[in-house]
């Protein structure tokens, strides 16, 4: 699964709000050469208009992303959060969801990676496994779990 990279998996990310989460993860993607310099602002802007918090159950997740034109090489950056951070609900901007796990998507092709996205949504529905993932306090170990899961 080459969309997942050990350099792009963070366990117990310390962030004060959703903007901080997105900024840190976008910086990682930029440093890793996956996105161009405008990607971060584009994701932040889009998150305001079309938020990505998903009320997936006990453990809620967020999937920030933006237009394909900012992406150079497809990747997903994963982060479990040290403490929950509020994201607006995708289906209702007036509500927030308390997010513990984030998968930020950098997709180069529209309408692609259907299997990957489907697996990602299955992961979010597998709350028991998510519970296990958010307890891992080592990024390398979290990477190992995710790599196996998406194999």
């Amino acid at each position: 699964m080459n969309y997942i990279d050990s350099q792009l998996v963070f366990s117990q990310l310390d962030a004060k709000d959703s903007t901080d989460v997105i900024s840190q993860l976008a910086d990682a993607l930029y440093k890793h050469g996956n996105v161009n310099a405008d990607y971060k602002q584009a994701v932040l802007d889009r998150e305001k208009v079309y938020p990505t918090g998903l009320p997936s159950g006990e453990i809620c997740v967020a999937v920030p992303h933006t237009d394909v034109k900012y992406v150079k090489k497809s990747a997903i950056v994963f982060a479990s959060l040290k403490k929950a951070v509020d994201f607006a609900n995708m289906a209702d901007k007036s509500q927030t969801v308390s997010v513990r796990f984030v998968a930020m998507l950098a997709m180069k092709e529209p309408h692609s990676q259907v299997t990957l996205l489907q697996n990602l949504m299955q992961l979010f529905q597998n709350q028991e496994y998510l519970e296990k993932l958010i307890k891992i306090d080592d990024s390398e170990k979290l990477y190992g779990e995710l790599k196996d899961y998406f194999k």
Partner: protein
Amino acid sequence: MKKIIVACGAGVVTSTTAMNKLNEELQARGYEEGQDYKLIQTSVQSVASMADEADMAITTTQYDNDEIKIPVINGLPLLTGIGADSVIDKVEELIKG
């Protein structure tokens, strides 16, 4: 044949996932894409301009537009799985006409 718009913010990520789930579930209920129904993927900005040619719109994002004449349903359950059956039920009702 019923035409159903599936839309999300950018028309890239979540609508792809929602469409795939919808196809899977409708096929499991014995409906054929291209015969019983057709899915049209787009971004929410384009829903209004495409609504004339469609029978229903499913959006994963919030969608407020009183002008629109076709039913618009929230497709978030297709992503989270929570309440997905009731979304599929509504689509099935439309297809059965």
